[in-house]
């Protein structure tokens, strides 16, 4: 089993190394096979690991590879922690990744730097696996940053487009700000002698951490999570990240990387348990993000932007779940979301592909007819995210909302409103894309066509997954398969949440009703129209002026500060030195006049010198 875990981790790395060392003119088929093969292998190994873990009595297996950062009292080895949580993550990360790799071999056909793309992609998967499989925070941080770097490269993949380059940079820097949180959290933990290994923290947190310290750690972690998982206040890099190729959006910016923050929070559940106020903050941030992002998603014109805000909103749900202690629900939604959001992104990729790169919803319409495979699979995704049974989204979202309801009614209400909005904007997207008039004919000369099989196949697989993933964690009779599985890690079970059976049925009904509400509203509003300014206020289109706020409040002032500092450096710091030097030479030049060449002046100088000596002596003698 440990070997399988190792293979899971290393297969992508080997894939990356092979791709890097491949000849520059290697065929796309070879490159694609290597990359996809590596990830597939990884997925299979993950399966083996999972099975192996199921057959173990101990649900926490540590695999230490070698000592890494060990000095003084710090011991951060390169070690893997295979437990239910990490196995769950491994499985869906490698699974979704494998599908997206396969899809990409079709999508990226003929692109420049094909090999580099897959190398980055493999490296990304490796980093993501490091993140989820690490046995300690420092190593998690390695993966954490690694996915950030890969994200930077992949977002800025079309580097000759300024917008892509800027987006990549923006993504990295926002993440970096979040990373501060993770770093600080590590520092606080370490300075309280909890150690940085997860198992260590789990055992020692309650004794070593005071409530205040725990709150600080939780807040710092939340900052880290909000950077990586695009939550308020650091969410606005994710829409820009859509500048990357669509498979990248699907993999990194929907399914895997952006959920790392949620994973981290769940991972740190033992610390979260120590801080009630910290968890409340998390819940509020999650609920707010879910709501805000959903409102924005209702007014976006770019198909990928809608999906991006949808992702933010869905992750908001996950964070909300973490905040209310429904860790199982969070992971459940994460997995389910990975399926249907990847499906939606890949579907949108297929749409964009068919329209030769067109992403504007207003220039689509009536694609249902020309995309026989994409259309039904997308339909599944749409229904899943809208929260209609029996699709996965219904169960997952239901679990989250149930948790929220038990914890805080206000947050639950916000979640329900968000659910309406979700159904609304997704339906709008769906309608504008596949229904109505074929508006693409106005701008596009060529005829749209369905994508090749390599792209379609993953869509089908994901559609199936999105349909049946709900079975992972069915609430009835308190089955909660997934939740039970990871309870050993998080220490909190869904069965302890305390909503009665009737209550759960009622809540589920409400979910269905609100989803239908949003769905029908969108249908009626958008079936015949492409522009409804009243429903797309500038305020929402401009993302609540969030970017402008940062730009005015932070970006520009900082730029000015930097420029001023530069000026200070040129003018003051250097001038001080030059000034001293100048003063020295000026005084030297002034002194030069003393040397008049007149011997009588010289003699006078000497005489005055003697006078001084004599005066000193007189003074001394008293």
């Amino acid at each position, binding site marked *: 089993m440990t070997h399988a875990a190792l293979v899971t981790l290393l297969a992508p790395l080997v894939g990356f190394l092979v791709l890097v060392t491949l000849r520059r003119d290697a065929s796309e088929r070879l490159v694609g096979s290597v990359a996809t093969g590596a990830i597939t292998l990884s997925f299979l190994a993950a399966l083996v690991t999972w099975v192996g873990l199921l057959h173990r009595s101990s649900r926490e297996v540590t695999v230490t590879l070698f000592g890494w950062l060990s000095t003084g009292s710090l011991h951060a080895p390169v070690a893997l922690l295979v437990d239910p949580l990490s196995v769950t993550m491994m499985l869906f990360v490698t699974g979704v990744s494998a599908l997206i790799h396969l899809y990409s071999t079709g999508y990226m056909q003929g692109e420049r730097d094909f090999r580099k793309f897959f190398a980055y992609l493999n490296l990304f998967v490796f980093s993501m696996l490091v993140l989820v499989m690490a046995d300690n925070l420092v190593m998690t941080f390695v993966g954490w940053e690694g996915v950030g770097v890969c994200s930077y490269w992949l977002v800025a993949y079309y580097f000759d487009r300024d917008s892509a380059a800027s987006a990549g940079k923006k993504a990295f820097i926002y993440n970096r700000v979040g990373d501060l949180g993770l770093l600080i959290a590590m520092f606080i933990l370490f300075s309280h002698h909890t150690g940085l290994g997860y198992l260590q923290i789990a055992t020692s947190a309650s004794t070593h951490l005071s409530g205040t310290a725990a709150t600080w750690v939780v807040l710092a972690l939340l900052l880290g999570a909000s950077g990586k998982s695009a939550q308020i206040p650091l969410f606005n890099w994710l829409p820009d990240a859509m500048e990357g190729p669509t498979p990248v959006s699907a993999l990194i910016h929907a399914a895997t990387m952006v959920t790392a923050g949620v994973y981290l929070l769940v991972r740190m559940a033992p610390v979260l348990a120590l801080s009630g106020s910290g968890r409340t903050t998390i819940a509020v941030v999650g609920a707010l993000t879910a709501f805000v992002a959903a409102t924005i998603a209702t007014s976006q014109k770019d198909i990928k932007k809608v999906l991006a805000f949808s992702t933010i909103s869905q992750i908001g749900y996950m964070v909300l779940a973490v905040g209310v202690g429904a860790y199982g629900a969070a992971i459940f939604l994460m997995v389910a979301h990975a399926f249907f959001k990847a499906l939606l992104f890949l579907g949108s990729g297929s749409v964009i592909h068919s329209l030769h790169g067109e992403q504007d919803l207003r220039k689509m319409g009536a694609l249902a007819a020309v995309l026989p495979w994409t259309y039904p699979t997308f339909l599944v995704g749409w229904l899943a995210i809208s929260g209609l049974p029996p699709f996965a989204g219904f169960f997952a979202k239901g679990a989250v909302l149930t948790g929220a309801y038990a914890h805080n009614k206000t947050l639950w209400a916000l979640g329900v409103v968000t659910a309406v909005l979700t159904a609304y904007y997704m339906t709008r997207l769906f309608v504008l894309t596949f229904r109505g008039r074929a508006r693409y004919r106005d701008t596009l000369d060529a005829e749209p066509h369905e994508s090749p099989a390599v792209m379609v196949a993953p869509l089908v697989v994901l559609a199936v997954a999105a349909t049946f993933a709900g079975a992972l964690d069915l609430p009835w009779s308190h089955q909660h398969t997934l939740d039970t599985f990871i309870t050993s890690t998080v220490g909190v079970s869904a069965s302890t949440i305390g909503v009665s059976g009737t209550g759960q049925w009622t809540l589920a009904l409400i979910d269905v009703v609100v989803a239908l509400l949003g769905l029908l509203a969108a249908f009626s509003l958008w079936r015949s129209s492409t522009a409804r300014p009243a429903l797309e206020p500038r305020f929402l289109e401009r993302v609540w002026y969030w970017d402008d706020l940062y730009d005015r409040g932070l970006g520009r002032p900082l730029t000015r500060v930097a420029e001023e500092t530069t000026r200070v450096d040129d003018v003051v710091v250097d001038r001080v030195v030059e000034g001293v030097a100048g003063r020295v030479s000026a005084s030297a030049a002034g002194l030069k006049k003393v040397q008049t060449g*007149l011997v*009588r002046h010289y003699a006078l100088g000497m*005489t005055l010198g003697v006078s001084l000596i*004599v005066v000193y002596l*007189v003074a001394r*003698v008293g």
Partner: protein
Amino acid sequence: MLALTTTWPDLLVFITAAALIVVGALGVISLTNPVHSALSLIITLFGVALSFLEQSADFLAAVEIIVYAGAIVVLILFVIMYLGVDRHPHDEVEPLVGQRVFAALGALVTVGGIITLMAKSHWVTGVMSASMNGTSLSSGQGEITQLGQSVFTTYLVAFEVTAALLIIAVLGAVQLARRDRESEVEQ
């Protein structure tokens, strides 16, 4: 105090010597014609010789007249005449701003300070016995004998090395005053 220790003739000699010295010195620095200055210097030298005599340094008094007044000043006078600079009396306006004020200040402070220091020390703090092998200035012996003894014992080396000094003087005078045969080109 003064009346008790000093006889009138001595006082008279001192006053005369002091007058000669100061007047002569003031003449040197105030007269514009170098020739006059040189002559004034001779007055000072006579005053100094007189005070030497008064302080029982008879031989030195003689040397002072013969060597200083007789040789050195004559040499100076000779050069003044030779160069003819007496015909170009210097302008009495001091061209250097503040030179005189500061010169006076420097001289006054220095001399005043030295006098203060001397006075604080009761004018003399040494004792004769300090000299390891100095010859005492006893009244019975001739001063010249003692001087001779001192020169050839305590100051034997000093005396001998004056020879080097004199060689330099000769050599220097010859070297400096010699005219170059080749044309003098300023480089």
